[in-house]
Every structure is written in C-alpha cells, then in structure tokens.
C-alpha cells in the first residue's frame, strides 16, 4: 500500500475550483464509465457531456397538476411567467406541457401562448387517439406528447389490448401527428418494467422509420417514463430497471438521437433526481421536471434540483435566473396555498437554516463553512439560524447580527447580547419550552435589550 504523508499548508485549501461558493458546486468528471449491455462492454462518454444540448422540460401543468387540486387560469399564467424568467433567453427550461381536453385546460394554455415568450415552448399532451389530435390542432400547437404506454401492465391490464393492437394504435397516432404537421413526443409509459426487445424497441424503431422522410422539426421525440419510480442508476443494474442501459439502448438499438430523447421519473423510491441526472449523463438531452417536484404520488424531479444539477454540470446558468425560484416558492405558499416541506432543498423555509449551535458557530465565523453556496446571491436567501435550546451563544449572536444587518467588525459582541442569551436559555432550562423561539420574539428581545441599535435598523429599513 502506498504511504501518504501529511501535507502541511500555509492556510486552508478550500478546493474552490469545485466549490466556488459564488456559484453552485461543480460536478466534474475525470473518467468515463462502462457497463455491459447484451454481453458487450459499452462506454458512456462523460468527457463530451457538456457539448450536448442538455436542457430541462417542465410538466408542472400536466403531471404536477395531476397530483393536486387544479390551478386556476391565473395561477397557471403566473407560474408560466415565472418559468419564462427562470428559463432565460436560451431555453434552459425548453418546453412545458398542457392537457388540452377541457375548456379550462385550453383557456390556460392559450393564455400562456399569449404571453408570447420563446421559452418554455407550450406543448400538449393527448392519449394515443387520432381523434384527440384535433384538440392540439385547434389550439395551434407544434408539439404534443402522446401516451404510448409500453409495459404489459398497461397494454394488457389497463388498456385491454395486446401488443399488436398497441403497436398499431400508437403508430397510427404518431402517423396522424406527422401528417398534421405536429411533432409527436411518444411517452413510453412504464418503460422501466416493459419488454424492451419484445415491444419497446420494435415500436420505437417503427416510428423512427416512419419519420425518416419528414422534416427535422417533426421527427418524433421519445420520452422514457419511469412511471412507478422503478429506475435504478447503479452501474451494472439489469434491464428494464437500469437507467443507463435504457438510455443506451434507445440511442444505439432504437435509433433515437440524444437531442430527441427525454427522461421522466417519479420519486417512489427516493431516486427521482439522481435517475434524471443519470439519464442526462447516459444519453437523454432532456430532463422532465416540475416546480417543487410536485407530481403524481411521490412527485417528479424537482425542477429547481434539476437546474442546480444543470449549473453544476455545465458550470453556468446559461441565462437562467435562479433568484426566481424563491419567488416561485413564495407564490406556491401564499397564492396557491401549497405547503412546501420546511426541509425541502433550495425552496423550503429551513433549507439553509441551522438549529445546531456548533453549526451557527461556524456560520458566525464564515458562511462558507455551513452554507452550500452563496444562497443570498443565488437564491436571495441568506443562511439563517433558528433559535432553540441547541443554538447556543453563537446561534443567538448570528441571529441578532443578521437581523440588524451587521457584518465584520461592526457585529455586536456576544457579551453585549448576554441578556438575550440568558432569556433564551431560561425559556428551555427554567420554563421547559419545547418550541423554537420565533423571529418575532427574537425581534422583540432585540428591541427590549438593544433599543438604540434596534431603532437605527428600523430607521434604515423605513427611510421615509
């Protein structure tokens, strides 16, 4: 075994090429990986990953809305406008999709089209029924998802068909879309428990053949739908659950180029984002997601998580406005009445709030110790401390100085805050409190014990 010697340094080595703090931590690869497919070793090329047009697609209004009471038309348009700002001019969030069946669906869709934004593009979603295409034509969409469920659970048990009937029905719907000048996007529902060689690949090969002579903008897209969250990202896992192998076979055996291949997952086994990310790495250019990860049962990949993976992978936002995420979270809570779990990454009330005194101590010294990145610059949310019995003097000092907006040498020393610290300590030790001290209570304590500093802050916050 090689012996490693201690390397002493003049100061801390912060690995800022990976953890720049003013940006999202970067996801760097220094090797490709291989897997064995049909007895052959295949290599997944990660070195050229960022040369592909990786992007996010949105299904907040389709799969997301399926899992909750419906949005009003106004809420849909407001959220769409947030998505426009989030996406930015380069289409990081490239598409979004809508139901087209009810008048309310179409009203919402048309109101979003009226926004006139380039991204995210408005697309539809229909069953594999030729007649349903008229709804898409009526609203003038250029692309629609088509439900092409591909496991025998769906073909036989749900749709009461056999494979031949499904094959013909789906192919007919795709053919009709092409004829109507609408780009079909085949949603291979339940693909992670489907017969790849016996149904999925023959069907996809067929639609690829059908579209050989059509214009590029009409060629079918294929969405791999991990409907029940069965997908597995681990190298070596077997089909049909293996995400890498599914992606590889779609590209190499079914002939779908990465630019027309998309992943859609569910979180039933807590794997939703990592599976989506794996699909990005292994051949899908598009990752389908929803705001806050809402979606059928356990949800879809959270779009905000996908965006931070995108930034980590590519090294930049490509014009996406990450600050909008905090506005979206506030909108969901205040206008829609949706409760975001406090601990949800990036958008939950407590995502960067520490309750541990020892962590607050670290934050007090330097944000970089306990903040994932500069959350104030990237999300508009500075790192926070919740005051409990575990906060300690560092927690109280951090809270008060943050509240008063005092930094560096202007920060109040702990000895000046000792009465507030004593009050907090006694709440738990003497009065047996079991809840966190609220921000209002803390503000009142500052007003009581540091009146001059408090009113100086009030004056600064309200200059008029």
């Amino acid at each position, binding site marked *: 075994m090689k012996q490693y010697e201690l390397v002493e340094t003049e100061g801390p080595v912060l690995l800022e090429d990976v953890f720049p703090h003013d940006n999202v931590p970067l996801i760097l690869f220094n090797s490709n990986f291989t897997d064995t497919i049909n007895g052959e070793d295949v290599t997944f090329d990660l070195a050229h990953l960022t040369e592909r047009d990786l992007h996010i697609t949105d299904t907040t209004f389709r799969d997301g809305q399926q899992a909750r009471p419906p949005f009003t038309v106004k809420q849909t348009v407001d959220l769409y406008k947030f998505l426009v700002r989030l996406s930015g001019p380069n289409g990081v969030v490239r598409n979004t999709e809508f139901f087209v069946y009810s008048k309310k669906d179409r009203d919402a869709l048309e109101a979003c089209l009226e926004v006139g934004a380039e991204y995210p593009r408005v697309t539809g979603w229909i069953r594999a029924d030729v007649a349903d295409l008229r709804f898409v034509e009526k609203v003038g969409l250029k692309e629609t998802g088509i439900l092409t469920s591909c496991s025998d659970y769906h073909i036989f048990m749900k749709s009461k068909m056999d494979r031949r009937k499904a094959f013909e029905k789906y192919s007919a719907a795709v053919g009709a879309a092409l004829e109507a000048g609408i780009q079909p996007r085949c949603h291979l529902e339940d693909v992670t428990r489907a017969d790849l060689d016996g149904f999925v690949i023959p069907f996809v090969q067929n639609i690829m053949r059908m579209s050989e002579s059509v214009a590029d903008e009409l060629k079918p897209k294929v969405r791999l739908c991990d409907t029940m969250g069965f997908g597995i990202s681990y190298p070596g896992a077997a089909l049909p659950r293996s995400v890498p192998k599914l992606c590889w076979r779609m590209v190499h055996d079914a002939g779908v180029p990465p630019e027309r291949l998309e992943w859609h997952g569910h979180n039933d086994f807590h794997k939703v984002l990592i599976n989506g990310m794996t699909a990005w790495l292994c051949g899908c250019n598009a990752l389908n997601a929803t705001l806050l990860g809402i979606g059928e049962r356990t949800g879809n990949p959270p779009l905000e998580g996908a965006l931070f993976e995108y930034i980590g992978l590519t090294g930049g936002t490509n014009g996406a406005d990450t600050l909008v995420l905090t506005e979206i979270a506030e909108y969901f809570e205040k206008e829609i009445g949706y409760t975001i779990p406090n601990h949800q990454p990036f958008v939950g009330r407590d995502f960067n709030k520490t309750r541990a005194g020892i962590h607050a101590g670290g934050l007090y010294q330097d944000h970089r110790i306990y903040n994932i990145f500069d959350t104030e610059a990237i999300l508009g949310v500075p790192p926070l401390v919740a005051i409990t019995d575990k906060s*300690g*003097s560092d927690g109280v000092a951090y809270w008060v100085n943050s509240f008063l907006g005092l930094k560096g040498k202007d920060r109040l*020393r*702990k*000895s*000046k805050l*000792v009465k507030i*610290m*004593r009050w907090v*300590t006694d709440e738990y030790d003497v009065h047996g409190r079991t809840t966190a001290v609220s921000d209002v209570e803390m503000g009142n304590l500052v007003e009581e014990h540091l009146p001059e500093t408090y009113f100086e802050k009030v004056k600064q916050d309200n200059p008029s």
Partner: protein
Amino acid sequence: MDDIAARVKAVVGRVLKIDPKTLKDGDHFVQDLGAESIQSIELVAEFEDEFDIEMDEDDALGVQRVGEAVEFIRKILED
C-alpha cells in the same frame, strides 16, 4: 488579596452564585465551579461592566481559572 482580585471574585460569586470567600485562584471555571457556556459570556460581560473595559472576546473566553482572570484583567487595566 488586592482590590482587582477581590472585585473579580465578587463578580464570579455573583454570576455563578458562589460565596466569593470560598473561591481560590486555581479554581477552574468549568470543572471546579460548574460554569455553563452562557455563564462564561455573562462573566465576560460583568467583568467589562465592573472594570469599565472592553476585552477581546475570544481571548477572554479562553481564560480558564479565577487567578488567570485576575491577571488577564490586571494586564488590560495596566495597558
């Protein structure tokens, strides 16, 4: 016992609720006198009030024994 030592022990007695007469220079604030984290900060605050001084907080919190506190404050007063 000089005046500074007496005043330091009076503060320690008041904050930690101990009879100042029982305090010895070698008493360790935490191990012998049972000072809790917040009481260490209360001691710093009370010393600053008593002697009308401002102490470097990290250095002050690093002082472990009563006699060390006396010398720490004496030095600040002399400077």
